[in-house]
Each structure stands twice: as structure tokens, then as C-alpha cells.
């Protein structure tokens, strides 16, 4: 604790507490000043009343019995209180003391305070009133001002104690509060350090009090969640690259080594380099698809989303794929409602639909029929692609979206095993739900755009910065592969038609 104490004292909450204690002290001081003044005035006026009634009484006896009566009255009084608290002084016009328990004075008229020395006891402060009587004699009556002094002393003592207690309490509560806040902040910063040390699954514990700290922690945890999934997606890509690109790269290398040992003629070399370039294109295509999935999964900025004319997009798809179906001797029918719009990225949505259609066409035999239709309900727009091919067994339906997953039955067909992974990633980005059902025979592939999600997307303008960082990292590997490909390409005069890294 001794090490933590200076930190506690340095916290902003502690300083704030001290500031408040100081402010409280100042206001208390003003209050005490006012009370001090007012009680003083009140005490003085009550002393005055007592003095005045005495003076009136003495004047009365002067008026009634003359000089002798007054002197007797004064002497009688003095007998009762020779040493206070009442003090009286009666002087003749020459200033000689006639009677009194106060030393002679040139005493003025009116009210004043006076210090009176006493025999065998300390001098006393009195509050007095002096008047000149009609016959020229001077009369002064005073009262010990002790009650006023005592009251003032009491006030000062009460204030002193209460201020001390307040300050101690403020100090203690400030320290306690700061220690509490410090503990919560320490939890956050410890979690941050753990995460930096590599434990990405760590989250900051919430206390459940729904206070401002819980609110902040919930936001931080959501951010950590997002970052972790973005990192996970990068990790996934590197794993995929390690596992699934190594095989074709090995094959490519073997092919070149074999040619190096065996190829005799220029034609043979030409054939090998053609083969290598097409191998390389396939690898780059896979790589490009992985890159794109990673980009999409880590979240393309939703601010790029715009209203997309889904009907027009689907019609374009039909226009593109109809002739292909005819060539495959498949029947392609369509039933598209007009005026359907959704929020999204047109290019990605086009690719999603294209992949689903291509999937249906690729896995359906000649003579099969393929259909693309839309069904609009109040809650959702459903885009359904049906085929009359072999379908997907119910047990495998969840697995077809995995990267590089290919059904046993379709391993002989060309394809990277990434088409549906890409569909799933694009769908997730657009909050489109995917539903695979039996079309008996064949597969019914439904993409549902729920209107509630569409409203959210329309209002969603979250900028997601990490997308760019992720893609930049991956593109560095991309460039390295490019360097290899360039080497292979130079050997060949006839290069292949496409750069497949595009998609």
C-alpha cells in the first residue's frame, strides 16, 4: 500500500476531493464569520438592555430621592457585587469618585468597552454606558462581557473541530474513492497488458452495476472482440496459405525440376512453361479469393454501402449465365420481381449471386434445370437459386462453406473450394441469411435480405480502419508471389489470358 499511496494521492479523483474540501472550508469560514459577527451584535445588545435598565433604575431613584438616594442605591448595589459582574462608577462634577467598584475615569458619554483591573483577580473586559446626570455628576454602569467572549470562543472551537474532521474525512474518502477507481483502472490496464502479451481472448470484467465504467468497459470489450476476430481472420488466411497453397506450389516446383532434368527441345520447354503459368494462375486465383474473403470478413467499410437495384443486378446475372446454361444443355428459368432494392456493395452482391449460380450450374448435369427467383414478403426479400442436380446431403450442408471444403462427389470438378466461403463472407457482411434446403431433387439455395437488417445497414456508417491494415499485410505476400510469377512468365512468349489475382 505504501508504494500505491503516492499514486492514490496523484489521482485526479483525489485532487478533486481535496478541491471540494477546500471549497467547503472557505464557505464554512464565511458562515462562521457571519455567525460570529451576528452573535456578537446580539450579545452586545442584550448587555445594553441590562445596563440601560440599571441606569433607568438609578435615574429613577435620583429623581425620587435626590443625590443621597442615588448614592445609597449605588452603594447598596456595590455591596451585592463588589467584584463584578456588575460595575458602577459615580463621580462628582470634579471627577472625584463618590462610589464605585471601578477606578476613576474621564469616561466618555455613550457605550464603550473597557478593561477594568480587579483586586486579586485578572482584569476584566466590560461593556459600559456612561451618562452625565442633570446635576453634573457622572454615572457609568458596566457589565462583564464574559458571555460574549465565551460565545465567540465556543464558535471558534466548534468551527476548528468541524473543519479538522471535515478535512480528515475528505482526505480519507478521497483516498478511498481514488483507490477504488485506481483498482478498476488497474484492471483495465492489466487486461490491456495481458492482451499485448498475446492473450487475445482476455476481456475486462464488468462489475454489473451499469455505471459509467461498465459502459466504457462494454465498449472496450466490443472493440477487443472485433479486433480478435479480425486477427483470427488473418491467422486463418495464413494457415490456409500454409496448408493449401503449399501443395500446388510443390507441384509447380516438381514440374520445373523435372523439365530441367528431362526437357530436350524448345517445344518441350514451351509446354512446361505454359503448364507452369497456368498452375501459377490457379494459385494466384486461390490466393486472390483468400485475400478477398479475409478483406470481407474483417469488414469492408459500411460507408461504401449504397442502395443497389437488386432486380437489375439479378437480370444482368441471368443475361450473363443464360447462354452458359444453354451451352451446358441446362435449362435456366427466372422469375424476378421488379423494383427490389437492397443496401450493399453492388460488386460484392453481384459476386455473391454469381457464385451461387455458378455453383448450381457446375454441380448439375446436362439436362438439369436451374432457376433464379425472388420472393418478397413484408419482412424480407428472398433470392432463391434452385437446381435439379444431386443436391447436398443434409449432414454436409454446414460444411460446404468451409474454406477448401469440397464434397467427395465434386472433387473431380475444377474449382478452388472457396466459392461458397466467399458467398458466406459477403452474406455476413450484408447481414444476409443463407438457407440450404432440399429441392428434391437438387438444392434450394436461399439468400434472405431482412428488412430490419436493411434498415440498420442504411443507417450504419461505421468506418472500420483495420480492414485496410489487414489487406496491406496480405498484399505484401501477394507482391512476393508476383515476383515468382514474373520469373516464370519471362520464359514464355505466349502468356495466358488472364491475371487471376484480381478477384
Amino acid at each position: 500500500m505504501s508504494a500505491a499511496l503516492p499514486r492514490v494521492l496523484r489521482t485526479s479523483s483525489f485532487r478533486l476531493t481535496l478541491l471540494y474540501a477546500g471549497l467547503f472550508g472557505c464557505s464554512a469560514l464565511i458562515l462562521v464569520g457571519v455567525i460570529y459577527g451576528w452573535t456578537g451584535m446580539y450579545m452586545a445588545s442584550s448587555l445594553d438592555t441590562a445596563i440601560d435598565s440599571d441606569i433607568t433604575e438609578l435615574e429613577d431613584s435620583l429623581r425620587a430621592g435626590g443625590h443621597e438616594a442615588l448614592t445609597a442605591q449605588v452603594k447598596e448595589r456595590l455591596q451585592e457585587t463588589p467584584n463584578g459582574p456588575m460595575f458602577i462608577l459615580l463621580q462628582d462634577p470634579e471627577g472625584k469618585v463618590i462610589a464605585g467598584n471601578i477606578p476613576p475615569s474621564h469616561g466618555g458619554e455613550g457605550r464603550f468597552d473597557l478593561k477594568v483591573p480587579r483586586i486579586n483577580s485578572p482584569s476584566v473586559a466590560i461593556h459600559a454606558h456612561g451618562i452625565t446626570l442633570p446635576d453634573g455628576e457622572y454615572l457609568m454602569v458596566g457589565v462583564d462581557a464574559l458571555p460574549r467572549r465565551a460565545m465567540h470562543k465556543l464558535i471558534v472551537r466548534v468551527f476548528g473541530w468541524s473543519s479538522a474532521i471535515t478535512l480528515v474525512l475528505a482526505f480519507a474518502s478521497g483516498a478511498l474513492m481514488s483507490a477504488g477507481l485506481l483498482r478498476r483502472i488497474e484492471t483495465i490496464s492489466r487486461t490491456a497488458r495481458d492482451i499485448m502479451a498475446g492473450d487475445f481472448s482476455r476481456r475486462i470484467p464488468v462489475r454489473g452495476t451499469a455505471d459509467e465504467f461498465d459502459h466504457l468497459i462494454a465498449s472496450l470489450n466490443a472493440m477487443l472482440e472485433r479486433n480478435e476476430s479480425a486477427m483470427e481472420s488473418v491467422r486463418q488466411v495464413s494457415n490456409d496459405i500454409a496448408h493449401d497453397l503449399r501443395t500446388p506450389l510443390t507441384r509447380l516446383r516438381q514440374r520445373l525440376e523435372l523439365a530441367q532434368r528431362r526437357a530436350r527441345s524448345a517445344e518441350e520447354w514451351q509446354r512446361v512453361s505454359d503448364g507452369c503459368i497456368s498452375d501459377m494462375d490457379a494459385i494466384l486465383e486461390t490466393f486472390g479469393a483468400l485475400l478477398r474473403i479475409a478483406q470481407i470478413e474483417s469488414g469492408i467499410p459500411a460507408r461504401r454501402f449504397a442502395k443497389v437495384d437488386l432486380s437489375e443486378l439479378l437480370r444482368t446475372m441471368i443475361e450473363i449465365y443464360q447462354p452458359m446454361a444453354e451451352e451446358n444443355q441446362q435449362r435456366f428459368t427466372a422469375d424476378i420481381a421488379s423494383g427490389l432494392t437492397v443496401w450493399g456493395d453492388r460488386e460484392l452482391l453481384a459476386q455473391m449471386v454469381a457464385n451461387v449460380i455458378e455453383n448450381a450450374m457446375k454441380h448439375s448435369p446436362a439436362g438439369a434445370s436451374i432457376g433464379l427467383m425472388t420472393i418478397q414478403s413484408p419482412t424480407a426479400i428472398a433470392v432463391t437459386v434452385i437446381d435439379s442436380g444431386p443436391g447436398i446431403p443434409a449432414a454436409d450442408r454446414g460444411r460446404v462453406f468451409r474454406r477448401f471444403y469440397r464434397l467427395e462427389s465434386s472433387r473431380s470438378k475444377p474449382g478452388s473450394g472457396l466459392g461458397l466461403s466467399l458467398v458466406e463472407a459477403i452474406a455476413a457482411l450484408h447481414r444476409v441469411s443463407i438457407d440450404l434446403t432440399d429441392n428434391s431433387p437438387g438444392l434450394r439455395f436461399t439468400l434472405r435480405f431482412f428488412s430490419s437488417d436493411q434498415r440498420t445497414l442504411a443507417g450504419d456508417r461505421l468506418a472500420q480502419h483495420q480492414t485496410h491494415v489487414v489487406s496491406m499485410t496480405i498484399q505484401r505476400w501477394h507482391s512476393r508471389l508476383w515476383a515468382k510469377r514474373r520469373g516464370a512468365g519471362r520464359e514464355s512468349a505466349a502468356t495466358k489470358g488472364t491475371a487471376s489475382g484480381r478477384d
Partner: protein
Amino acid sequence: MKILLVEDDGENADYVANGLREEGHLVAQVASGAEGLIRAVGDSFDLLIVDRMIPGLDGLNLVKSLRAAGHHTPVLFLTALDGVEDRVLGLNAGGDDYLVKPFAFSELVARVAALGRRPRTTAAETRLILLDLEIDPLSRTVRRRGQLIELQPREYRLLEYLMRHAGQVVTRTMLLEHVWDIHFDPRSNIVETHISRLRSKVDKGFEAQLIHTVRGAGYCVRSPA
């Protein structure tokens, strides 16, 4: 064609420059953005090939500065950035075309040729004529030997694009981009299918075949040699 290549990766720059020289172009090479801008402003080139990521002034800003200075030399961006957004940024900055690394060299050659022809085709051309094939872009009608050929709208766009680049090789990706506005690579051979349908409408029954497949590169509309 006189081409300025702005690319900092020496090996890649030499590869591209030498390849283009073999194609008969004059190629000047610079390795930095600032140098590129000075050369592009000071000398008259027919085409700039600019890498997006170059030291100093990057490709995007180079082209922005160039356009701001009132130069309209066509620009082809080369880049390893292939996000959709990157392409849009490149074109918005004033680039005319965008090619993502790695690319097939034939793709680069085709796009360079297409950009070189650009200014002439933007002029109002009332008719595109090749041998006995005639296209009227205003009424969107196609005639061969005076005989009207019925084409679907997309087939017409495909043919018009090929005709505007008659004599040049047009790649599959160029067709996907310009005819279908598709910027990803569909697995299936949709371009091949559509070309073969177009061929059956335009070339079938005529002695002179006009739509040619260039092996490993793309397609070309030209008179038979």
C-alpha cells in the same frame, strides 16, 4: 507510342519496359513520383504507366497533380492494391485504367494499346465500319453486307466495344469490365460463351471471319489476313 513508366521496383520496371519495347513502343523509365511528375509535365508522352506505391510523391498524388496542372495524358495505374475501393480511388484521381499485379503481360499490352487509341474514339463517330460489317452507334443497328443483324443489348455492347478497338487485342477482363461492369473474375467462361454466340450471329454464313480469338490473350476484331 511514347510511354513513361513510373515504377520503383527495378526488376519489374525493366521487365515491363523491355516487354513494351519489344512491342515497338518507346519507353522512358523513372523510379520516383517527383521525377515522374517532372518528366510527364516537361515532355510529351502518349501514355503514363504509374505504380501506385512509389517513394516520395505516390502514384495517386502524381496523377492528381498532373491533372490539376491541366495535362490529359492517359494514365494506366499498376498496383498491388486490389481492393474495390483502391480501384475507385485510382480512377477518381484521374487514372484511365487500372491493372492489378500480378498481370499477364498480354493484358498490359492490350490495355496500353486501348489507351493509346482512346482520344480518337471519343470523337463523335457516326459509324463503325469494318469490311462489310457496319455499326451505327446512334440507332444501335448492325448490318453485314447491308443485311440487318438482330442483337440483344448486351451482345450489341460487346460488338461495339470490339469494333471501337478493331485491330487491337481485347482481353477477357477488359470485356468483363467494360461490357458487363464486372470487376471480379467469374470462374466460368462467360466471355467465351458470349463471344461464340456473337460470332454465330455476326460471322456465321460469311466467308470472311471478323471475330478472332488470340490464343492466350483475348479477342480481336479485324479483317482476315
